[in-house]
């Protein structure tokens, strides 16, 4: 293992991931509606040269559906991670304003952490009535506490830093200190935090959808594909169960690697 060049490895891993994501997004453009196209003469066909990963019970191509599902997961994960980071940042900023607000935010964190993630996700998705929006909000609302803790600790430390105190003593406004000194320091933390959140976000989205609380069954999400596969499992249609999950695993692994490389490089 070449540990001498963490930046190089991070750049390489970033390039590969970006390329794959671009390919994934581009494929959605090129594919059009083929993930939904049914071929009634080729139902539940095993993987072959014509049907690369096989077809499902309605004769839809599994490879096209898996790609579409991964693209869906990617967008849901992106939006949820972004939203979650924003929540973490704003609550961490609120917590540093006064001791009472700090106690309130930490009580909120304790409350959210004491309910198992999946149950909280189900409650929120239930409250919002399901669907894509509900999943994004539910995942965003449940994933911010760990990042908020990191940002809060950073902010407390920064407030005591000499340059911030000098800046305040020289009469600079709170706003200037916030966006001139504090935010530039926090942005790398936010970036890494969002990247760390991302794999969890997609895994939880898939789990929620699999249980039937997430994306609607008409969308080719990975969770939907695997829930479908469950019904045909005892018939020995192994390809339905293996490939969508494998795609998801590879995507999560790719982003995990990227975030661990980036964390080392920054």
């Amino acid at each position, binding site marked *: *293992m070449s540990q001498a060049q963490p930046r190089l490895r991070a750049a390489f891993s970033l390039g590969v991931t970006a390329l794959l994501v671009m390919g994934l997004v581009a494929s959605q453009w090129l594919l059009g509606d083929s993930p939904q196209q049914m071929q009634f003469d080729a139902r539940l066909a095993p993987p072959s040269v014509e049907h690369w990963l096989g077809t499902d019970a309605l004769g839809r191509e599994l490879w096209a559906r898996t790609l579409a599902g991964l693209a869906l997961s990617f967008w849901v994960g992106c939006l949820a991670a972004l939203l979650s980071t924003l929540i973490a940042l704003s609550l961490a900023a609120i917590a540093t304003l006064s001791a009472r607000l700090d106690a309130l935010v930490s*009580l*909120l964190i*304790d*409350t959210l*952490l*004491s*309910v*198992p*993630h*999946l*149950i*909280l996700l*189900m*409650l*929120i998705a*239930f*409250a*919002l*009535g399901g669907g894509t929006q509900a999943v994004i909000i539910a995942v965003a609302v449940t994933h911010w506490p760990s990042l908020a803790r990191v940002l809060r600790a950073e902010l407390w430390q920064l407030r005591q830093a000499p340059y911030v105190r000098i800046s305040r003593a020289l009469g600079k406004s709170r706003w200037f200190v916030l966006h001139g000194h504090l935010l530039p320091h926090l942005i790398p933390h936010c970036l890494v935090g969002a990247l760390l959140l991302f*794999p969890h976000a997609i*895994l939880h989205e*898939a*789990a929620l959808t*699999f*249980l*039937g*609380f997430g994306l609607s069954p008409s969308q080719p999400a990975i969770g939907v594909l*695997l829930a479908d*596969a*469950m019904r045909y*499992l*005892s018939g*020995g249609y*192994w390809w339905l*169960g*293996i490939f969508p*999950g494998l795609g*998801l*695993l590879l995507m*999560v*692994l790719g982003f*995990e690697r990227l975030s661990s490389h980036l964390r080392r490089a920054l």
Partner: protein
Amino acid sequence: MRLIAPIAKRVARLALVLICVALVSYGLMMASPVDPIDAYLGPQMAQVSPEQRALIAQRWGFDESAVVQFGHWLRQLVSGDLGWSHVYNQPVSEVIAQRFQRSIALLGSAWLLSALVGFSLGVMAGAKEGSKLDNIISTYAFITASTPAFWLALLAVLLFSVTLGWTPTCCAGPAGALNQEVTLATRLHHLLLPVATLALLGIASITLHTRTRMLELMRSDVATHAFSQGASRLDVAWRHGLRHASVPAITLAFASLGELFGGSILIEQVFAYPGLGQATVAAGLRSDVPLLLGIALFTALFVSVGNMIADSLYTVIDPRIQPGGL
């Protein structure tokens, strides 16, 4: 006497957190677009006149304001009445008690197995950084940490139940058999695969955590000193490493109860194991609000007590850490 004050503080905090959980989950249920009367009536909805609906609403207190309803619910909760589950047609507390009895076998054995195996794998990997064993164990832990729980369960069913036919595909006992007729061996046979899958997922985090601790130790002065006296890596791992890494591992095991429970929901769903996780999914999909609220509170209690034990264990196992000093 020194120990009582912090414990009392923790219990007070626990009560506060539980009240917050009750408030948040009740608020979420009130915000839901699902009408509780529709959910209760189900397909008989069409046969009920508006007057009858109003009567039901009055009987259940739905015509009151949300705050008053919350007050009623909280008062009943304190007196031990969690409400009526319309999915199982039983009091919620009975449903939770029955289901949890089945789940605890799954949760407990998976938890114990993952803690023990995870810890020993972590010690083995951390004892010699960069060795072949370390690489294998680290890669394995890294991959399982990213694997969707339900997919792993699905693969397990596919391989062991469908293809090889070694284990049953579903449920806690043979279909149609009465509870009393099922022997212990059959029960264990049905539990085998779910426990193995759930444990496999929990192992990763404990392994990675323990490994980091071991690497820390191997670079510390203690280890250098021991090496200079001629101790082998195995010696250092056995004499110092176990103690050094065991406290964080035990703490992590207690702190990860929430994750374990989340995993059990997915795995019970795949294996159709009739435990608390499956009841949660059924309650959510069929809008059984009292049951959902009861389960949310129950699991919050379960996880919070786990976290409390994790915090308290630190001071019990390692007397150098003063309570309240962190």
